[in-house]
């Protein structure tokens, strides 16, 4: 059993910043991450690729600074370490190379980040349909450049990905966006506030200009997504836009609808969650330091609510200051004074969120699918099956799971919970956050058995 003052789950911007801040404040930190090196999703692979892949931009290289700060004797970092359970009393159960360990500390910080929102539409399970985030990871980590890809959905990540593809000579075949001019117009009332984050806004505008200048055909207000397989593994992707039906043939359709907090672990740990209308997602309830209703448990970064890398870094530092305070290493006054810098950074970084959330709100059609569209990829459950199961029994997530198996697959609902909720909501039913259970990641029976107190004789 490893002892530390603080165990941090996730080595993305929030986790890395919290680790170095806490360590510099004198706390012993155990940093755990499932990936084989630090960086998280935003800076994935930054330690190995940092100086090679220019197309990834300056922001990406900024991750290096966070990684370098992890060289601190107060930090023990374990990679390839997947946390699969939090116990009451701040014990963290994690698995590395098929062996599970239990580490305890008075404080735990969850910094597990975000995941992409599911984008279900007819045909989305076909080979060749991938998430935009997946394509970006493959570019970052493996240098794999999408071939003649069509980008579809909504959200700033699509612009970033398109621009990176253009820079590397892998120009997308088309950019098909679901958001309408109307939603942009509505979102514009948040613009004055967003000006606080003017650099981010300008960056976004530059990306859009670059995509247009490269001559990538663009569509907005697109709907009626459907895709089918044609010859040679190619896909035919069709949609409606500008009152007309369009269709592209492509080997690779990259879809995206924004990101949402990854709440599996926080839900399984007894943290209270609420539905956020603004972000159309469940969020853990935290205070201004990231503390939750579970004693000793903080959450920082995208896992607490989407804000992006800069916001995550600031939130990680805030949580670390609060934990240092609770450890008796900072007085309340010192904590509050130290917090001033990160708090204004957080405010700046978050200023643009209301605009982005409104402008790129998920499309209703993709959030509340109908008909044969697969909702649960693991168990192959369609929207129709879910709707039919609601006829004569309790209308809520537990019932849907028991009646249709949606959410019972290997991913335990990570890929379908939100869609199930969307379908439920469209039927006027209960929207309480679905229960999550452990293990958070699959664990071998033999590995689990090794944790039993005594061997059976």
């Amino acid at each position, binding site marked *: 059993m490893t002892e530390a003052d603080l165990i941090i789950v996730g080595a993305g911007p929030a986790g890395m910043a919290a680790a170095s801040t806490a360590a510099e404040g004198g706390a012993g930190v155990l940093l755990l991450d499932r990936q084989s090196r630090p960086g998280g999703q935003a800076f994935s692979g930054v330690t190995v690729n940092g100086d090679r892949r220019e197309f990834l931009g300056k922001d990406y290289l900024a991750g290096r600074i966070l990684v370098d700060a992890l060289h601190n004797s107060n930090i023990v970092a374990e990679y390839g370490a997947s946390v699969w359970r939090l116990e009451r009393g701040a014990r963290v159960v994690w698995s590395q190379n098929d062996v599970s360990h239990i580490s305890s500390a008075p404080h735990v910080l969850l910094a597990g980040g975000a995941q992409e929102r599911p984008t279900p539409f007819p045909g989305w399970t076909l080979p060749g349909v991938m998430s935009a985030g997946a394509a970006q990871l493959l570019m970052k980590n493996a240098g794999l450049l999408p071939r003649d890809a069509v980008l579809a959905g909504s959200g700033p990540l699509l612009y970033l990905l398109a621009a990176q593809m253009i820079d590397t000579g892998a120009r997308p075949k088309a950019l098909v966006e679901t958001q309408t001019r109307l939603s942009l117009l509505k979102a514009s009332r948040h613009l004055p506030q967003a000006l606080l984050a003017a650099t981010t806004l300008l960056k976004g505008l530059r990306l859009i200009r670059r995509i247009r200048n490269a001559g990538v055909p663009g569509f907005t207000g697109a709907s009626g997504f459907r895709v089918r397989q044609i010859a040679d593994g190619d896909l035919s992707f069709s949609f409606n836009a500008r009152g007309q039906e369009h269709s592209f043939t492509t080997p690779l359709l990259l879809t995206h609808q924004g990101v949402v907090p990854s709440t599996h672990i926080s839900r399984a740990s007894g943290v209270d969650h609420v539905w956020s209308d603004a972000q159309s997602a469940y969020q853990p309830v935290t205070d201004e330091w990231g503390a939750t209703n579970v004693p000793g448990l903080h959450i920082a970064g995208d896992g607490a609510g989407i804000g992006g890398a800069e916001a995550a870094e600031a939130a990680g530092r805030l949580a670390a200051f609060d934990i240092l305070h609770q450890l008796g290493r900072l007085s309340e006054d010192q904590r509050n004074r130290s917090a001033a810098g990160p708090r204004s950074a957080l405010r700046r970084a978050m200023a643009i969120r209301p605009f982005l959330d409104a402008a790129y709100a998920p499309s209703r059609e993709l959030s509340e699918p109908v008909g044969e569209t697969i909702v649960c990829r693991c168990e192959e459950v369609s929207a129709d099956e879910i709707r039919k199961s609601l006829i004569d029994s*309790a209308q809520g*997530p*537990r019932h849907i799971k028991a009646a249709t198996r949606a959410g019972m697959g290997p991913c335990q609902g990570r890929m379908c919970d939100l869609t199930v909720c969307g379908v439920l909501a469209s039927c006027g039913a*209960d929207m309480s956050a679905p229960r999550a*259970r452990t293990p958070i990641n699959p664990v071998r*029976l033999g590995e*689990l058995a090794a944790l039993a107190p005594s061997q059976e004789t």
Partner: protein
Amino acid sequence: MSTRSPDITIIGGGVVGLSLAVGLLREGRSVTVLDGPDSDHRASQGNFGLVWLQGKGVDFAPYAHLSCDAVAAWPEFASLIQELSGTDLALRQSGGFEFFTDAAEFAEFAAGLKQQQSFLGNRFSHDVIQGDDLRRSHPEIGAGVVGATFSAQDGHVNPLRLLCALRRSVAALGGEIVPGARVTHISAAGPGFDITLHSGERRSTERVVLAAGLGSASLAGILGFQTPVRPQRGELLITEKLATRLPFLSSTIRQVDEGGLQVGGTKADAGYDDSETLDAMASLAQHAVTVFPALRDLRVIRAWGALRVMTPDGYPVYACSPVHPGAYLVTCHSGVTLAPLHGGPLAHWIDNSAEAPDLEAFDEDRFALSCAA
């Protein structure tokens, strides 16, 4: 909403209430089932799906007979439900093992089966198998298993599909199921009852059956019943799907028809806390790899806890209210195994028909007697 009040209102839409509804509907009664919200504890959504005879009623002959009747009636009940609902229940009564890793427990269980045998005579058959003999016929069994018992009458179903299929069957027979209808109060009203729902809505009924699992606890007293039901937590594991079939069925390890393995069997008094615990997860895993070492590399994808509905002695309670004629309490553990009984003889009993069985032994007055003694 029906304007005419139903002959019988069943409070609770778990396997017990729904099985009973099927039985009463087939008797020609009009039936309404009131069921609670999605957040309710439901043993019917978290159980192990065994249709099991071994060890049932080793010190209470009436329960041994009841379970034996139910197990024998399962094939016919399953085809009825499958026909009404169009749902395959995956009933397999292929025989099942109880595995033991502790010699004393093994001996004790075997002695219990002997007793059960003495109650049931040739209606029950079982084998007691020593570890080494077992490994000769089942080389996959681990060295840590000291012995096993086997009964060819034991089997299992898919419990989630059973629940769904019962719902569909009730609908197919013209019964009404009202979801999200938590009953907060019941009062006797002339010849009948007034039922108040959480929403404030009121319904009237001629007769009322309380079959609300753990929810019965708060309503039983109002109707003059005194059985205290309590929760007992059981924990289970489920693994990823296996392409091959497990070569045996046991009371603690079974393969669901979709392919995953369920490992279960813990018992804990933890109030209404249905969390999964690390200790139970680890000990279930250890049991699985002790019994069948080749399972070592199979991955567990979920663990969960569910609450058993327990009467003081663990046996069913079938009781009519001594104070309010027309009110019944039906509660039991092993509601899956007993489903055919609830969907047949018990319905006759409530309906007071000529075929009504004698269920005297299951009245709740047995608790009053044991208290007085």
